[in-house]
């Protein structure tokens, strides 16, 4: 296990289906959790669709992996940034996205929201602060 803790940011930019980027990105996040790094995720561009509620994939015969996002809190992923401009451009609001939470061990495991709505400018600052940025 790695001793060093770095800030890892996973940037999700693609729609959940149509290409495999979203699903294989999620696989990296889940496997990477074992390395106990400081992990956060960004959803921007068509990537915001990955978090939408009520996905139904029977018609395209693909696995609906969207329920997996609600497990991210258990994998110690506490920070999920969603870019405001990307939601706005697609006529979406936070109400269209899954309600993702984590349990805060410092506050008696109180449930807290994982999703933070950020502007494009704020996202630039967030990216600047990272050690490793993986873009999918």
């Amino acid at each position, binding site marked *: 296990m790695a001793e060093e803790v770095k800030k890892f940011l996973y940037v999700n930019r693609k729609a959940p289906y149509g290409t495999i980027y979203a699903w294989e990105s999620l*696989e990296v996040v889940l*496997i990477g959790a074992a390395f106990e790094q400081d992990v956060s995720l960004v959803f921007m561009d068509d990537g915001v669709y990955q978090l939408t509620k009520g996905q139904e994939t029977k018609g395209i015969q693909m696995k609906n992996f969207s329920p997996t996002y609600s497990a991210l809190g258990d994998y110690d992923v506490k920070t999920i940034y969603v870019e405001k401009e990307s939601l706005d451009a697609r006529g979406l609001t936070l109400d269209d996205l899954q309600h993702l939470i984590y349990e805060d061990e410092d506050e008696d495991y109180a449930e807290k929201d994982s999703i933070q709505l950020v502007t494009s400018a704020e996202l630039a600052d967030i990216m600047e602060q990272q050690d490793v940025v993986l873009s999918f």
Partner: protein
Amino acid sequence: MKLAVQVNEGPYQHQSSDTAFLFTQAALEAGHEIFRVFFYHDGVNNGTRYTTPPQDDRNIVNRWSELAEKHNLDLVVCVAAAQRRGIVDEGEQKRNGKDGNNIAPGFRISGLGQLIEAGVQAERLVVFGD
């Protein structure tokens, strides 16, 4: 500087596969260390020795293999992505009962942990994709 490289796209279809190679080669020539090259998504297709491009074109797979031999590069193909796309080494062949394997010289198949480790160990992880 100690660098790691991630290749997310397959050969010939996407230029980022070429750019990843040219970057890696240039970095080595400039005296930088490449901790690892990790092939993910369709990038795993850079690691099949069955690739046979026309003779007047670049051989993307062979040039990775040659670069690996020259510089003792660690070329790692993600096992989960490889299994989906039919990239097989001897171990995977036995494990999954396949009738052959196609991994190119200098490449090895391993897990996603190798990518995270590369991110931790290298000073910069450079991602090539669309």
